[in-house]
């Protein structure tokens, strides 16, 4: 047995020596035809050498003079870091141990923080394209992947859309690593799971599935993972792509996936037992399951006292109804049921409509269209001019429209109420949905009066009752509620009264807070 082992050792040593000798004779030109190492190098060169931004930096290891090559994408890698922590130590390194070249270098020479080895071509290729450095060593079948990111990134800035008076002021950026760090910093729980997937055949975008182990229901996590894994698309450029591909139904105007640019909102969702999805190069996180009630919540609701929050939520609720129904109500009252108005108002409406050239419904549609036009134009115009344009455009259009007999004064008030109400809705998707649904409601009202309006409202409610997000009914907790779930709905209860997480997500651990001890808060 001893003799056999010795023969085997000798054979291995001879093979390595021969490989080194051959490499020295041929030089490191990437055209080796023997062994795995050659295949890896050839493939990388063949696929990437035509791209001018891919750098192939050749050098030799210090003591042994062995050929090596660093492959990286220019602009995505920190070059100084690469020189200091990778190339310089390698050039100055002592001779590597036989047979364990890659592992040995990783352990002894390279001082970068995140290093690993791989024998897979896909992983090596993906790493170069993802902004990592891949080291190819002569005669070594494995490649060393070094992470030294150097791409220019936007830092952590204030939220651009979900502005809040109270609460943290940071928001997600386009870097997935930064974004997961923002979450990890807030949630120091060992159960926080961040699982990465790569989606997009060509963009190879990193997507992180995040949940709180032991809190989130495994069925929701499983469902989220299943929906992500079934995506097979060329490219994912933003979380919006993922949102559209994993939502429960493509035909509903209501969003069944929530989005947020705020890490605190995501963490709050994770604590409730939801699942978050972050996408590299996207500053918006996705949170599932979504509920209809969640669309009325603003980020600062969690940080403010219960009374003002409750009041504001009632205002938002009324505002969304006002944005949806005010033009339709006007159409219904002006054309079908004038008796619904106080007598003096009915007279005023009739008077103001006297010189108007169009029927009420057409007037309402035109006014609504003008509003959308102004809004869209003010978004496109550079921001210093945008607001002025909006105000001036609105005033001029309104004033001249009334004088020209296109609109009545009452219609201008109706449209102003609609606009203000729609902008007071805290979430952008809900605001969009409300404006979108206002059109069919108005058309139904034009044809069937108040009956049409009620009918379309009931149809919208029916759609909401049917809708689900990742298996959770969209209307929870408004139907089949438990008292506990109603504590954070339109009226918000004091935080001290919260005991459990929302039951409709079926969390694994339901207890969220234990009762405050008696007398603790009384000095």
């Amino acid at each position: 047995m001893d003799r056999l082992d010795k023969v085997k050792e000798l054979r291995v040593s001879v093979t390595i020596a021969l490989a080194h000798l051959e490499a020295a004779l041929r030089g490191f030109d990437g055209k080796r035809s023997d062994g795995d190492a050659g295949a890896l190098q050839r493939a990388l060169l063949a696929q990437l050498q035509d791209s001018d931004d891919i750098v192939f930096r050749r050098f030799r290891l210090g003591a042994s003079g062995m050929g090596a090559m660093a492959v990286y994408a220019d602009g995505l890698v920190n070059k100084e870091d690469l020189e200091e922590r990778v190339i310089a130590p390698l050039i100055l390194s002592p001779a590597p141990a036989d047979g364990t070249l890659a592992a040995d270098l990783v352990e002894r020479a390279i001082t970068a923080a995140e290093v690993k080895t791989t024998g897979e071509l896909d992983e090596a290729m993906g790493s170069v394209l993802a902004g990592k450095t891949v080291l190819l060593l002569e005669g070594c079948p494995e490649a060393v992947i070094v992470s030294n990111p150097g791409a220019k990134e936007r830092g952590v800035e204030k939220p651009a859309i979900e502005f809040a008076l109270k609460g943290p002021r940071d928001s997600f950026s386009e870097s997935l690593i930064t974004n997961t760090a923002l979450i990890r910093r807030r949630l120091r729980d060992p159960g926080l799971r961040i699982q990465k997937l790569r989606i997009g055949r060509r963009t190879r975008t990193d997507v992180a599935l995040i949940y709180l182990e032991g809190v989130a229901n495994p069925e929701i996590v499983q469902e989220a993972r299943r929906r992500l894994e079934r995506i097979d698309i060329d490219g994912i450029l933003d979380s919006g792509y993922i949102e559209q591909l994993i939502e429960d139904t493509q035909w509903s105007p209501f969003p069944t996936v929530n989005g947020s640019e705020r890490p605190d909102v995501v963490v709050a969702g994770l604590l409730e037992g939801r699942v978050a999805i972050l996408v590299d190069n996207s500053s918006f996180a996705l949170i599932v399951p979504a509920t209809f009630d969640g669309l009325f919540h603003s980020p600062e609701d969690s940080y403010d006292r219960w009374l003002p929050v409750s009041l504001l939520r009632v205002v938002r609720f009324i505002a969304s109804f006002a944005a949806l129904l005010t033009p339709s109500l006007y159409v219904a009252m002006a054309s079908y049921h004038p008796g619904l108005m106080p007598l003096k108002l009915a007279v005023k409406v009739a008077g103001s409509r006297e010189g108007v050239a169009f029927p009420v419904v057409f007037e309402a549609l035109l006014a609504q269209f003008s509003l959308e036009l102004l809004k869209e134009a003010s978004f496109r115009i550079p921001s210093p001019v945008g607001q002025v344009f909006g105000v001036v455009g609105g005033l001029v259009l309104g004033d001249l429209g009334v004088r020209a007999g296109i609109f009545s004064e009452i219609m201008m008030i109706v449209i102003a109420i609609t606009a203000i109400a729609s902008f007071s809705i805290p979430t952008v998707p809900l605001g969009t949905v409300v404006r979108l649904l206002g059109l069919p409601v108005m058309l139904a009202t034009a044809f069937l009066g108040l009956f049409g309006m009620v009918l379309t409202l009931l149809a919208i409610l029916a759609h909401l009752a049917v809708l689900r997000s990742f298996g959770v009914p969209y209307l929870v907790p408004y139907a089949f509620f438990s008292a506990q779930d109603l504590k954070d709905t339109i009226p918000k209860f004091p935080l001290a009264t919260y005991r459990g997480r929302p039951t409709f997500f079926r969390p694994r651990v339901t207890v969220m807070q234990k009762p405050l001890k008696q007398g603790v808060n009384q000095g």
Partner: protein
Amino acid sequence: MMWINNRIPATALLLLIPMTIVEPPGSTISAAGDGGFLSFVIGFGLATLGAVTAGLLARRHPEETLAGSLRTLFGRPLGTVLAAGYALFWLATAAWLLRFEAAETTDLLLPLTPVAVPMLCMLALAVYLTAHGVEPMARWCFVVLPFGLAVALLFSLIGIARGEPVRLADLPAGGLPEVVRKSLEVAGVLEGIAAPLMLSGYFLQPHRIPAATLGGMAIAGVALGSAVAMVLSMFGVRGASLYHWPAVATVQNVILPGFAVEKMDIIYLAGIGMLGLGRFALLYLMATVTIQNLIPSVPLRTVAFALAPPLLAMALLPPHFDSLSQIRALLVYPTWGFCYGIPLVGLGLSSWRSRRARADRGARALATDSRRPPS
């Protein structure tokens, strides 16, 4: 996914029962209008007993649908025939209600619109909801009913305050026999009381069904009672039945300060319309579910879509409003049979069988004990 199980908590009956009963109070008021408030009280009391009977029967067969429990109780052939009868009954009632609601809408709100237009709109909504199953329907009712009830109650209270509540104590000229006859008529128009039985097999926590049924009847009683009280206090006994739409006629007399005259009925109609549409959708669901239980291989969605054309044809059959009233009067008899008679017989059979089974088990246990050698 675990949430998609198409089951509803038993407490859903708290609102499902009022939804199947409260709208439109016209039928009840017409029945009670001649008999006075006493006939409503007695009739509603009978209906409560009927609802509790249905609830108790549903609790006894928690995992069986209506067709299943009827087959268990009455045997397979008779059970199947009875279940088919139920389906036909719900279909006829739903068709009548669809036409009635549409007639009310076109009569009071849209005089120039053909009656088929609101019918089609309402039917489309009911089919959409029914095709998605029992749970979304119940969820929808939960959200809609409070709005409808709030409007109905508000106007009822205003109407009672404006009327003469002493009229509620009036008795009809025919005396007590007339009261009894009208009581039976009141009970005969409340076919929604069979809801616990119709949705049997879909409830979570079936032990709560009777209590939830009673709660639902209490809510329905308050809403319906206040509507009847409003009309009777305004028009008195017999006066109410002179109107096609007695409740609406009452609300038309409510004039709010500063408003144009006689138009608050539109708001009332909107509220009542919600309840009417909800009731129709529930009746349609019941017919669909019963048929689907008879032919389980066909999906509920298919049945929901397939039932729409025959129901529409049935609803278009009555040539004018008077024939609608006649059909309503005829529907009282099957209501008594399907909503009171069969559940009562079924409950009796079920309890007799379980008692006999207990007695058999006791006798077997006794026989086993007697064979055992003394220790």
